[in-house]
């Protein structure tokens, strides 16, 4: 069993979170608040570090005057807390949204559309390739709403729907696998680091 007080705190906090499985209780709520507070404090310290490293130092220590523009924009974002000048906060938001949308548009078009279409232009010389191409077409037909899905189109779209169901099943299976991994991690910490029953 560990003699490190921090490991004991970790173990007790984990038990506090797990106690929710029985029913909600004050110990669980207290641990939840500790988690939120610790995360907020950590985020605050990282934010402070970033202001120093990415804004203050380049401007004041290195004399890079160009940094004045983003710093002023950053300060303007806080104008929303002062009612008479709250409109000023829209400018940095507009720049962030515009730059973000521009970046996303370029990246999505190039890497998520063109590259994916290219990746699906496969020679139909193996079962896998045929299945892949037909599957992509079937799913796309399922989302074709500009005409009634009747006759062969309906059957093809139904095939697409089946493939989507299989994909959702795979996602569900992955979620279970992921959640068991999280439980496993917690139990390894409790039995290994804290109680010393298993060696890690």
């Amino acid at each position, binding site marked *: 069993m560990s003699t490190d007080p921090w490991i004991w705190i970790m173990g007790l906090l984990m038990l506090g979170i797990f106690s929710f*499985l*029985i029913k909600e209780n004050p110990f669980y709520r207290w641990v939840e608040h500790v988690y939120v507070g610790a995360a907020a404090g*950590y*985020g605050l310290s*990282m*934010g402070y*570090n*970033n202001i*120093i*490293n*990415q804004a203050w*130092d*380049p401007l004041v220590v290195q004399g890079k005057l160009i940094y004045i523009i983003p710093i002023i924009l950053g300060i303007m974002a806080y104008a929303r807390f002062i009612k008479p000048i709250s409109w000023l906060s829209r400018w940095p938001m507009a720049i962030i949204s515009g*730059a*973000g949308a521009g*970046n*996303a548009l*370029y*990246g*999505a078009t*190039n*890497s*998520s559309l063109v*590259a*994916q279409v*290219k*990746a699906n232009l496969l020679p139909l010389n193996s079962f896998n390739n045929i299945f892949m191409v037909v599957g992509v077409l079937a799913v796309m037909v399922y989302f074709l709403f500009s005409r009634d899905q009747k006759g062969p189109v309906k059957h093809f779209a139904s095939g697409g729907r089946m493939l989507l169901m299989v*994909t959702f099943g*795979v*996602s569900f299976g*992955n*979620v*279970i*696998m*992921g959640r*068991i*991994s*999280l*439980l*496993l*991690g*917690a*139990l*390894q910490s409790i*039995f290994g680091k804290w109680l010393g*029953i*298993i060696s*890690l």
Partner: protein
Amino acid sequence: MSFWDKMQKIDRRIIYALLVIVVAFPLIRPLGLPLSYSDTTLKFFDEIEKLQPGDRVLISLDYAPSGAADVHPQTVAVSKHLIQKGVKIAFVSFWEAGPMFAEQIMQPYLDSGELVYGEDVVNLGYIPGANSAIRSFGFDCVGSAPKDLNGKDTASMPIMQGIKDCRDFDVVIDFVMGSPGTAAWVQQVQGPLGINLLVGSVVVEVPASMPFVQAGQVKGLLQGLRGAAEYELLSGSAGIAAAGMDAQSLGHLLIIGSILVGNVAYFMSKKQPKNNKQ
């Protein structure tokens, strides 16, 4: 209430208790169930094996404690392998908690003198700005991270010499549990610059990452804790992930069993009124 009705209304706490018992038992008494290697893990491993001593790798730690149990063992296993090969590692993060995980990995090696900070390894810290930050860092690594986590100049560090953009790293690895993550790296950096990108992902994110693997944009993929276990065994240093695979397999069996019991009970209880009438 019939047997099948009872089967549909099992107290959730009984299932939780069963799950904890089933997962905990093989941790204490390992069963040694066999483990096969997935194709994406083998590709990931092959890319790492191609690296030579002195090569530089960028590791982006884009996850938080809530998903760390699934992805952090991957980071540990891959970092250990890279360090054994004499490869230099620069850690960066676009998630706030990332630098903390980098510290956890680096510290034992720095304490033992196996690695020299700034020469063999560096923690570039957290860069806010999600997709825009990833793009900015991808195109100008030192300019986007002028200081490391402790406020030291990165431009003067030996490990960062000659690094202009992400193409100057031999491999870029993104360990990820959500957004920003794989999609952002592919869209903002891999696409425009053509970097050699590998991904280690929480298993929930795998379906979203697979199209990028299929298209060759991501060269290799580690899938959750299982991916970590496969990598540990491939690199010859079985660790925490490999030790947990028996528990994971038994956990899956219990869930499969629960789904089967629930469905059978549902259909049997639907049949029952007809039987009663007869």
